């Protein structure tokens, strides 16, 4: 009845803009999963024996595990035999240069606003690795990065070229036994991004991976591994979209970050997988394991995420604070609209002395969306003088959505200082009226209020992406009032 509701609905109802399908020939395995499929994936990738073995161990372990159901999300049972575990654009070999990439693929990325042609890149400040279905199709600026010793390439390429690095670091942050989805990923992952920043190098540009699911009935399982050697710095951005499809698709990725002494990794995600339609039909199940390891002293890992897509998000980018004086940060905006569900948060595990962590979580719920923050702050006995600050804010638009907060704290050292603040608020009719009285349309008013609510997180994003994130939020909320 009130105009405020109307504006919120309009804003929330804006449609998903990346829902197109690219018509491209692909090499797809028939649905189903068994040891032969795992071996076949490994063979497709021409992997060394240690990788095949690792995958098989993961697969066998996965068989012993049960799907977890503790998250505050609800969905019908997933039939893991109904998905295909490998789909790749048909290219006889990995293209050696961008000129060899299928023009259809380049068009797809251009449509998404991700130009892969290097000369078109944002004045050379971002290098992109594009992953289409499960295969990395193009990596830009490789040469330039190589000249300072940075390795940035497809995961499968890294397995071929730098097997010693893979063997040394793979699974050391998220072991194949870690959890149901991580084990599944370890068995069947097809590609992803790999990045190594050598000692003392400050990566001169943003590195970015852009994930796109295209094929129907395929699960997407990528793996990202980033190693920042002593004293290095890297800022990494991940973006994701998928076509609009009626069936749900599973996305179970694993991201491992390793920061050695004095190294700093900044990892930003703008996740915009297809969220399903207004009735909750279709959409991606995004069950992702992301973890960073501040392995040595004075290292720092920051996660910043803007989660607007997916039917279900189940994701807790975490930091193991092992080195003394290491720092972990988590900044998150999660928006759920229509029938989207998000259970997201972080784990900060304080092990080293004087370790610090900061958690800022902003949850926005609209429509029938359900948004949960779930966080664990664990201070081990060894963590003298550990500090944590947590702030969780929830903003509700409309009266049929929900916001939930599940903070867990385990403190085993008396010198620890742990702070937790939480608020829940609603965009009020008064706030909207005030903005309208000053001349703003209802839609602009909602967008302004929501962006203000998220400001603390947006300012952590690299500039170009902060702008992108604001726009995305506007789109995801379009029609939310009404």
């Amino acid at each position: 009845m009130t105009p405020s509701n109307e504006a919120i609905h309009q804003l929330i109802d804006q449609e998903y803009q990346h829902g197109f399908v690219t018509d491209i020939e692909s090499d797809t395995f028939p649905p189903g999963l068994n040891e032969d499929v795992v071996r076949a994936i490994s063979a497709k990738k021409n992997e060394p024996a240690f990788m095949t073995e690792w995958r098989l161990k993961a697969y066998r372990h996965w068989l012993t595990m049960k799907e977890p159901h503790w998250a505050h999300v609800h969905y019908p049972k997933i039939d893991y035999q109904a998905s295909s575990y490998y789909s790749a654009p048909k290219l006889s070999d990995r293209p050696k240069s961008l000129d060899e990439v299928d023009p259809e693929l380049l068009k797809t990325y251009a449509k998404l606003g991700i130009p892969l042609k290097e000369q078109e890149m944002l004045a050379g400040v971002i290098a992109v690795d594009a992953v289409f279905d499960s295969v990395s199709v193009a990596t830009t600026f490789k040469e330039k990065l190589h000249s300072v010793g940075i390795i940035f390439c497809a995961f499968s390429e890294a397995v071929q070229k730098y097997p010693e690095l893979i063997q040394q670091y793979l699974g050391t942050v998220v072991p194949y036994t870690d959890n149901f989805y991580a084990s599944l990923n370890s068995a069947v992952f097809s590609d992803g991004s790999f990045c190594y920043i050598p000692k003392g190098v400050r990566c001169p540009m943003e590195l970015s991976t852009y994930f796109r699911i295209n094929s129907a009935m395929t699960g997407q399982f990528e793996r990202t591994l980033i190693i920042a050697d002593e004293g290095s710095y890297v800022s990494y951005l991940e973006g994701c979209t998928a076509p609009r499809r009626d069936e749900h698709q599973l996305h179970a990725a694993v991201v491992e970050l390793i920061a050695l002494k004095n190294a700093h990794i900044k990892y930003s995600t703008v996740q915009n997988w297809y969220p399903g339609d207004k009735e909750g039909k279709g959409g991606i199940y995004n069950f992702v394991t992301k973890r960073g390891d501040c392995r040595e002293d004075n290292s720092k890992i920051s996660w910043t995420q803007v989660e607007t897509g997916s039917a279900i998000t189940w994701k807790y980018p975490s930091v193991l604070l092992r080195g003394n004086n290491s720092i972990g940060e988590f900044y998150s905006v999660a928006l759920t609209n229509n029938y989207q569900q998000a259970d997201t948060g972080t784990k900060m595990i304080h092990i080293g002395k004087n370790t610090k962590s900061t958690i800022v979580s902003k949850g926005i719920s609209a429509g029938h969306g359900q948004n949960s923050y779930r966080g664990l702050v664990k201070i081990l006995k060894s963590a003298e003088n550990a500090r944590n600050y947590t702030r969780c804010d929830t903003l509700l638009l409309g009266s049929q959505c929900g916001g939930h907060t599940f903070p867990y704290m385990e403190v085993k050292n008396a010198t620890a200082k742990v702070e937790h603040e939480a608020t829940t608020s609603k965009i009020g009719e008064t706030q909207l009226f005030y903005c309208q009285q000053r001349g703003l349309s209802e839609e602009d008013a909602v967008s302004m209020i929501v962006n203000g609510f998220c400001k603390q997180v947006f300012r952590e994003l690299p500039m170009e992406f902060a702008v992108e994130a604001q726009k995305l939020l506007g789109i995801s909320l379009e029609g939310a009032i009404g």
Partner: protein
Amino acid sequence: MLEIKNLCVSVEQKEILRGINLVIKPGEVHAIMGPNGSGKSTLANILAGRAGYEITHGEILFDGKDLLTLLPEERSHAGLFLGFQYPVEIPGVSNIYFLKAALNAQRKARNLPEVDAMDFLTMVKDKMKLLEMDEDMIYRSLNEGFSGGEKKRNEILQMLVLNPSLALLDETDSGLDIDALRIIALGINGLRNKDHSILLITHYQRLLNYIKPDKVHVLSAGKIVISGGQELAFKLEEKGYGWVEE
């Protein structure tokens, strides 16, 4: 400028305004006084287009246009400003950003280009000086953590920047100390000229010592029971509202 004809308004079946007639000409300053619950704020809200009221009868013309058919933002674009009794807080949105967005929304509605950022900042800072406002207030979140007096000053700042042809000021004087009252009055008088009209809603005569009204109306139980010049306000101060109700 503004013409209210026999306006009747209900909220949840309860009649709040019962036949208001009021004409404000360009350049005039009117004051509406009255006891709590007489319908003063309802009148201001109706004029600005707030939802939740049922207009059972009457019409309002603003510059000849039927005001009641316009959205709140359209009324704003047409030059109507409401200074809120309780200004709203918007965390994370800076004061200056909000002000600029508001001004540009108005300019856009009038087919004017967006304001130049530097010119805008200079203009805002000038007006802040007049209102004796601290400069860093423009970078703070809108009204968040502002004191009562700061919020009211900020309302007047917005008014001066948006430069409306009709300003409705709903108890802008309440909760202010003597100095703040004087400064606010200075700001309001700054808007006053032959084209701009002002409707002051207040409980007290003291604001009218600083802003001389052309007309004073007393609202009681949803009706204007008496109108007059400033002498009416003095009389009220002396005798109380009980006097007009008798």
